[in-house]
């Protein structure tokens, strides 16, 4: 032990340095976000709750094609597709449930959907006292989608899935099959 280390040991130099550092941090600006009172702005590509979307004429987009169910790595989606009872040329999802207790928010289902019926939003604070409360039916997803229309469009734009929507084409990936121009549900 040299004289210097001995002196350092006697005078607690290292501890004093540590104390100085902690004291300095005591007067620094705090980085805590007081969550329910102040919120961070989320990015447009934020992977929040998934919603179902509608066309401009209020008709729901989902055609019950099962692609989202097929790609979902967490098996969170269940689709029962069927012929639409009123419009025999059109298919729809007779039952659609999304289990948010299983969903890992990977966003694959949105990429898989051929008609942009799905999108993610900035909603995340949906807790429930029961597990069933987090298994969303199609109606719930549609309601949430109506609430977060602009967020879902922003998500699709940021994720490069909006291009063909603006192209005005009535066929192809984003309009399948051509929709009857009525206002009633789908």
């Amino acid at each position, binding site marked *: 032990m040299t004289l210097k280390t001995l002196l350092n040991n006697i005078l607690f130099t290292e501890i004093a340095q*540590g104390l100085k*550092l902690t004291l300095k*941090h*005591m007067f*620094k*600006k705090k980085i805590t976000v007081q969550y329910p009172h102040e919120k961070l702005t989320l990015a447009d590509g934020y992977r929040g709750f998934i919603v179902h979307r509608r066309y401009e004429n209020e008709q729901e987009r989902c055609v019950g094609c099962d692609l989202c169910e097929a790609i979902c790595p967490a098996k969170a989606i269940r689709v029962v597709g069927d012929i639409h009872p009123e419009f025999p040329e059109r298919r729809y999802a007779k039952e659609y449930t999304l289990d948010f207790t299983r969903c890992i928010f990977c966003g694959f289902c949105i990429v898989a959907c051929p008609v942009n019926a799905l999108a993610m939003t900035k909603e995340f604070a949906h807790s429930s006292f029961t597990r069933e409360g987090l298994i969303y039916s199609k109606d719930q997803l549609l309601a949430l989608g109506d609430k977060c229309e602009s967020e879902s469009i922003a998500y699709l734009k940021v994720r490069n899935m909006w291009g063909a929507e603006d192209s005005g084409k009535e066929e192809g990936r984003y309009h399948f099959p051509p929709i009857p121009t009525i206002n009633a549900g789908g």
Partner: protein
Amino acid sequence: MLNDLIGVLIVIAGLLFVVLTTVAYLTYLERKVLGFMQDRLGPMEVGPWGLLQPLADGIKLISKEDIIPSEANKAIFRIAPVISLVPALISFAVIPFGKNSFHFMGITTHPYITDINIGILYVLALSSVGAYGILLGGWASNSKYSLLGALRSAAQVISYELNAGMAIIGVLLLAGSLSLVKIEAAQSGGFWHWYIFPQIVAFVLYLISGIAETNRTPFDLPEAESELVAGFFTEYSGMRFSLYYLAEYMNMIIVSSIATILFLGGWNPPLPSLGFVPPFIWFMLKVYFFLFFFFWIRATLPRLRYDQLMKFGWKVMLPLSFANVIVTALVIYMVRR
């Protein structure tokens, strides 16, 4: 006679109130200080700036279920937290927190509950009794973690109490008394009379031993949460758990008070011209400085390893404190002759 009794009862009630509120708000203060030192805000939700947090915590702890492990030794398990708390509480009896006695309608209240001539010895003895609470609680829980925590605590308290006692002897030699009131009075008249200057080694030794005795970081091995879950009170819950907690914080206040009285002149103002500030305020200021120092150390230092702790206690602290006593005694003998 009756008047004396009433005076003492008033002081006891006042002291109890002050100590218990201080303990409650120490938990708040600790969380705030720790939070601020880690760039966080600490409790903010209950009341403005979280000021009602201790109240909410108290309600929570009281309303929690009281679980006693089925394999535990029930009687000892129940009594152990009390054994830990009561000595801490009655140690306050000899702490002189002010200078003046008040006379009011024939009732005299002193700034202490009692001034016994072995004051400091009384405090040391009681802190040893408090260690029994920890030991018995750990043993009676019948759990590995509790037992290990209790064993560590016993070893630690024994080694560091020795150092604390030896460190104090230097001050006692200077003051020539064991009474805390007399020790305080002997340091009056400016900060250059405080015993921190002739006894700086003893001061550092006492502070380190004090932290170790109250089981605070970096000496919190008995409750090392990363190895022993919660150490000796792993199995405790609800009110009994909070009794241990209260005892720990009360011990912190006692160690701070003793350090204030022995080394920083107690209620004496640092300069005689600052005498217009009530002595009680000076006392509180110094005690709170030490309490803040406890938190500060906790925010800064990691926990020691067990063998380091023992080595440091027996091979460094003990020889130093012996040397301090011998040197102090020699110097005093030379000067006084």
